[in-house]
């Protein structure tokens, strides 16, 4: 456990949620009636200490498909307009009805900049559910955007189309600073991609009857020229081969715009990647 010491709290939260989910799956069918219950009040209390939520107040928007074509690969995009970006401290992504509802907690650093902030990733959606993006601003207020997504089968269905190919390359990373549309633009976009199966621990091997052990990325740190863009703690709801696009503030002219990424998974594997320096 020592290797998780610095991130025990979020790790324990994600792990605990997964264990609860396993218990629920093993329970008799009567327990499934509970699925009809709205999980949000409990999540609101447990994850956000019941702090009041300002919904659709313009601080955060969430883009999600109404119907997910592939429940294991549902794209989500979160935006924070420029006038609020400087105040945004933390973003929590949540899928209410997933076995592990907290998808990720993202803490922004100085290199996240003050222009329009965007972060986009792909998630697993286990059943029809509300998806929430909650932004905590510097004044302690909570701002929320909610979308209902029709999808089924993201977490417990094994999405891996070719497990051998992914496991052979586990940890391989591609990091890019995308070309700037305009040299004077206040923000640029970066992208990180990691080969990883993101095993949820919720799949069984029918031949053996055993659970396939979990193996997923718990933490990600993204820096630009040594300054933090964001740090992410995540769980099993992030799709296999995690893929994140994000905005960052370029350094002052002549500075280092190299994007460096460090990821850690449940096996303690440390994965590192960087964009080509000065890429533009």
């Amino acid at each position, binding site marked *: 456990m020592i290797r998780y010491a610095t991130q025990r709290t979020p790790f324990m939260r994600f792990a605990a949620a997964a264990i609860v989910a396993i218990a629920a799956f093993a329970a008799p069918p009567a327990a499934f009636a509970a699925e009809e219950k709205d999980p949000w009040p409990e999540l609101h209390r447990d994850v956000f200490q019941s702090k009041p939520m300002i919904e659709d107040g313009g601080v955060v928007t969430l*883009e999600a*498909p109404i119907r997910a*074509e*592939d429940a294991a*690969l549902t*794209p989500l*995009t979160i935006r924070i307009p420029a006038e609020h970006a400087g105040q945004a401290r933390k973003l929590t992504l949540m899928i209410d009805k997933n076995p592990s509802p907290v998808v990720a907690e993202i803490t922004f650093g100085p290199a996240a900049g003050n222009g329009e902030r965007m972060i*986009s990733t*792909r998630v697993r959606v286990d059943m029809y559910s509300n998806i929430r993006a909650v932004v905590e601003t510097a004044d302690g207020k909570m701002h929320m955007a909610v979308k209902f997504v029709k999808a*089924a*089968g993201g977490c*417990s*269905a*094994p999405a*891996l*189309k*070719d*497990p*051998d*190919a992914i496991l052979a390359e586990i940890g391989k990373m*591609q990091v890019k600073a*995308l*070309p700037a549309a305009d040299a004077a633009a206040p923000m640029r*976009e970066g992208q990180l*991609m990691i*080969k990883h199966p993101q095993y949820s621990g919720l*799949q*069984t*091997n*029918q*031949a053996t009857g055993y659970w*396939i052990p979990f193996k997923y990325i718990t933490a990600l740190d993204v820096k630009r020229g040594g300054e933090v863009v964001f740090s992410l703690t995540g769980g099993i709801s992030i799709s296999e*081969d995690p*893929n994140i*696009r994000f905005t960052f503030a370029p350094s002052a002219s002549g500075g280092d715009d190299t994007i460096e990424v460090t990821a850690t998974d449940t096996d303690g594997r440390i994965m590192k990647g960087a964009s080509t320096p000065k890429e533009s």
Partner: protein
Amino acid sequence: MSADKNSEPPAARSAPAGAEALALRQFGRTFDSFSPDRRTLLSGTAALAALTLLKPLKAGAAGSAYVTEVAPGAFVHQGVHALYAPENEGNISNPGFVIGNDAVAVIDTGGSYIIGSRLREAIRALTDRPVRYVINTHMHPDHIFGNAAFKADNPEFIAHHKMARGLSARADRYMARNKDLLGEAAFKGIEIILPQRGIETATSIDLGGRVLELKPQKTAHTDNDLTVRDVTTSTVYLGDLLFAGHVPTIDGSIRGWIAVLDQLAREPSARVVPGHGPAALEWPSGAEPLRHYLNTLATDIRALIKNGKTISDAMVSAGQSEKDAWQLFDDYNARNASTAFAELEWE
């Protein structure tokens, strides 16, 4: 093809007189339509020589209206282009079988116990030889859910060596989802039967005077596609490595699929059997529309990636020029685009 094929009354399925005629007519038409290039003529000659050694089937065999004899002793049941629904009872793919002098090999069993049972009735109407092998071309429910209908024959269940893993991991989901789609009545009897033998390298099985060559393919439509060649008639059952009419579905690798099709195109065959589409097609021309679709999708997505576009962009725009060429396009294209984008962005 319209959905009313599903609701054919049992009487029509087993009409004996028309059945033989239909089978023969279809065989003749399929055979005549080939371009008589040298390879086809050569393989045809070899096939005819081999065929004279095959024992005849039951005289006046009934039940073959359910299947088309695409080459002597090689049969296919043609399913409809549809999603699983109660009214089609899972009749949405092309299962088939090959009859040798000693035994029968079934190649895919249809999308439900009901369809598997009808296929078995069609076999029983043609021959008393035992069903010794049930071969699955890949793990998808519409090709394997009829397996249980053959349990009484105690066959050896055979598939690509990776099918057991892929199917095991998806079994619960496949069962739950397709029960919802099919409804109780059409879902009845379906069970997951894992292969007893996993094919790792090209393997021959002997049906008596007739050999089938089983070849495990690299990741393409899925990571467990297996092709079955009836050497005697140069007929290849391609499973879902070949779609015609029904939009292709990618559950493996778009690049892998294109590569496998390139490889297969170099292997001369008198005819091939698609997993979805007509009972038989010429080869390799029968794969042209599929290759066009896959290449168009890949080209569109590579352009989007190059221009910094996202997976969401790909899902609404990639492959749209193929829209009118395929049935069920709107049911699968966006998902194909998503799958392909996630793969191609690593190039």
